[in-house]
């Protein structure tokens, strides 16, 4: 055997040692997967938690009937929460504030930042609708006093008022405030605050679990090579381990 091949073989061995990762063949891994105990009730709860937190009230109601899973929150409160969210999403901020206060006045009382953001959104809607005078009055009376209390609020307020300085808003550096994403941001902030006030987590558990899966696969990947799920939307185990 030529020296070349001896060296090649040695190198290959060294490489294998350096990797020194445990290799778990597919068959063994599948056996481990089959030994995992996942309870159907728990998966149902996970799905219900998603429907409830994301505000799918009718689907949650149906799911309760079809699967016998009890929601971890009073379904009636979802309807109210979604009404608030929708009001912000469609620009009816005043209406939203009223609805939040009907739900629980403490939410805004104990959450000055949220209240400011809602007022800011209201100002944005006034500007969007071309109600310049009303916007100015609102900014001076409602928002400026809050800006005095808090430096962060003041900066936000200045940024928002800057919208008035541009005739062509499409070309304005703070134009993003008029974007739909700003409404969605405010809406999801209210949504989270309402959930928190109902002692419910503000985010559903499922997305975190998906992240945890990716994390866990990476963590194990440092110590072992094994068949992964690379695409969580198909949940398929990769072919080669």
């Amino acid at each position, binding site marked *: 055997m030529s020296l070349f091949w001896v060296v090649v073989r040695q190198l290959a061995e060294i490489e294998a040692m350096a990797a020194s990762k445990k290799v778990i063949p597919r*068959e063994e*891994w*599948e*056996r*481990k*997967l*089959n*030994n*995992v*105990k*996942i*309870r*159907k*009730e*728990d*998966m149902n709860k*996970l*799905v219900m*938690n*998603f*429907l409830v937190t994301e505000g*799918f009230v*009718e*689907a949650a109601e*149906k*799911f309760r009937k*079809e*699967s*016998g899973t009890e929601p971890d929150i009073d379904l009636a409160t979802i309807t109210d929460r979604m009404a608030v969210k*929708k009001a912000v*999403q*469609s620009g009816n901020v005043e209406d939203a504030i009223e609805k939040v206060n009907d739900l629980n006045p403490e939410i805004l009382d104990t959450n000055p930042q949220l209240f400011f953001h809602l007022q800011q959104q209201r100002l944005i809607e006034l500007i969007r609708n071309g109600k310049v005078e009303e916007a100015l009055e609102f900014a001076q009376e409602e928002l400026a006093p809050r800006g005095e209390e808090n430096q962060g609020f003041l900066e936000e307020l200045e940024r928002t008022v800057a919208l008035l300085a541009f005739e062509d808003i499409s070309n304005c550096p703070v134009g993003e405030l008029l974007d*739909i994403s700003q409404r*969605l941001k405010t809406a999801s902030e209210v949504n989270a605050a309402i959930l928190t006030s109902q*002692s*419910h987590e503000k985010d559903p*558990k*499922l*997305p*975190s*679990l*998906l*992240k*945890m*899966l*990716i*994390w*866990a*696969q990476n*963590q*194990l990947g440092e*110590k*072992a090579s*094994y068949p992964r*799920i690379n695409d*969580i*939307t*198909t*949940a398929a*185990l990769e072919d080669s381990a």
Partner: protein
Amino acid sequence: MKETNGKNSVEKLDQEQDLGLYFLELCRRKVKEELEDYGGDDDEKEESPTELNTLNSSGGFVVVATDKLSVKYVSVNLHGHDVGVIQANKVAPMKRLVYYFEITVKDAGVKGQVSIGFTSENFKMRRQPGWEANSCGYHGDDGLLYRGQAKGETFGPTYTTGDIVGAGINYAAQEFFFTKNGRVVGTVYKDMKGPLFPTVAVHSQNEEVHVNFGQKPYAFDLKEFEAHERMKQQVKIEDIPVVPNASYGIVRSYLLHYGYEDTLDSFDLASKSTVPPINIVEDNGIDDQETTYALNHRKTLRQLIRNGEIDVAFGKLREWYPQIAEDNTSAMCFLLHCQKFIELVRAGALEEAVKYGRKELSRFFGLPVFEDLVQECVALLAYERPLESAIGYLLKDSQREIVADTVNAMILSTNPNMKEAKNCLHSHLERLLRQLTACCSERRSLSGNQGETFQLQRVLSIGKRS
């Protein structure tokens, strides 16, 4: 005949096996769980230290009180090899996030040479924890941390009479941490492998400490510490990007898989009307075909079974899917017969139940896979209030759900486009959760079984109103 690929017995599914047996196995596991008072997994069963080990201690120098929780140095110390060391009766449990214990310094004695830490099993019982290899100790007289040598490192404050001092292992961070009067004073990398004993030492006349292995509340807020550690990990995890709206797709395919059609319709309708509309990343299409298969039939049968109308469900099955309903000895038919029997018991129609049992269930007696469930079912007759008996779980909704899931999977298996039999059993969600659980437990077993494993039940209980 279909080719079998010769995999091991767990992979029966790939062979021409009765899929329903999978669900039968689920039922039987439930029987066991109910009987063993199922507690999630084996984590809680790990033993924890409860008292001091009076057998393996530096006898002669110290006296342990009768409650085995207090230790006092009674001699006069002369040198470095007459330390009064004592270990806990058990090693610190490892299958958890954090282990922790505390001492109260009752009396700092003449020199205040109290210490607290962890030592390995064969530790020299006449030396301070930290002075020898494979040990670690936080010393009261100088506030230094000793790790395997006679020289200590700057660490925390000194401690003396009246102070409460704690030592812990943070398995997630692989660190030791120490506390004084309820506050963490410092952490240090845990460079020791293998089981470790909680250890305390006293080394001058009249020094006395009292140990708390959790019998009493700690001065340190361990719960808060654990929550904080979990949060630290969670923050890292939350930063990981995932496909947008992946959760929607997974929920949707779950509803499809189990035939929760009404929920699915509401869900689809609502997803379209949200602002902005949710675009679920469509699977490769074929997958969707696999799961929309016979959706309405599956939904109808699930409803019938959930309502206890087993005869009607049977009739529909025979009409729609004769190929899976004709074998009266299949696991699915067996489960349906059992359920019918259970429904009769629930309705109080005991005589009819007996008749039905004789006709439909007796043939399953003596067959190993069926026997225990048949016996459990029949045993329902023995109780005046079967719901309150040990086998009351059979009367619960979850039993109907398993039967419905069985029928659902069997119908899915009649789909000529179904690529793998396994896909009839597990939804995407279940496959992901299995992978997650397996990854976590495999990783733990590769790191000496340290740290807590993943438990869906625990995740579900977080943030719940108590």
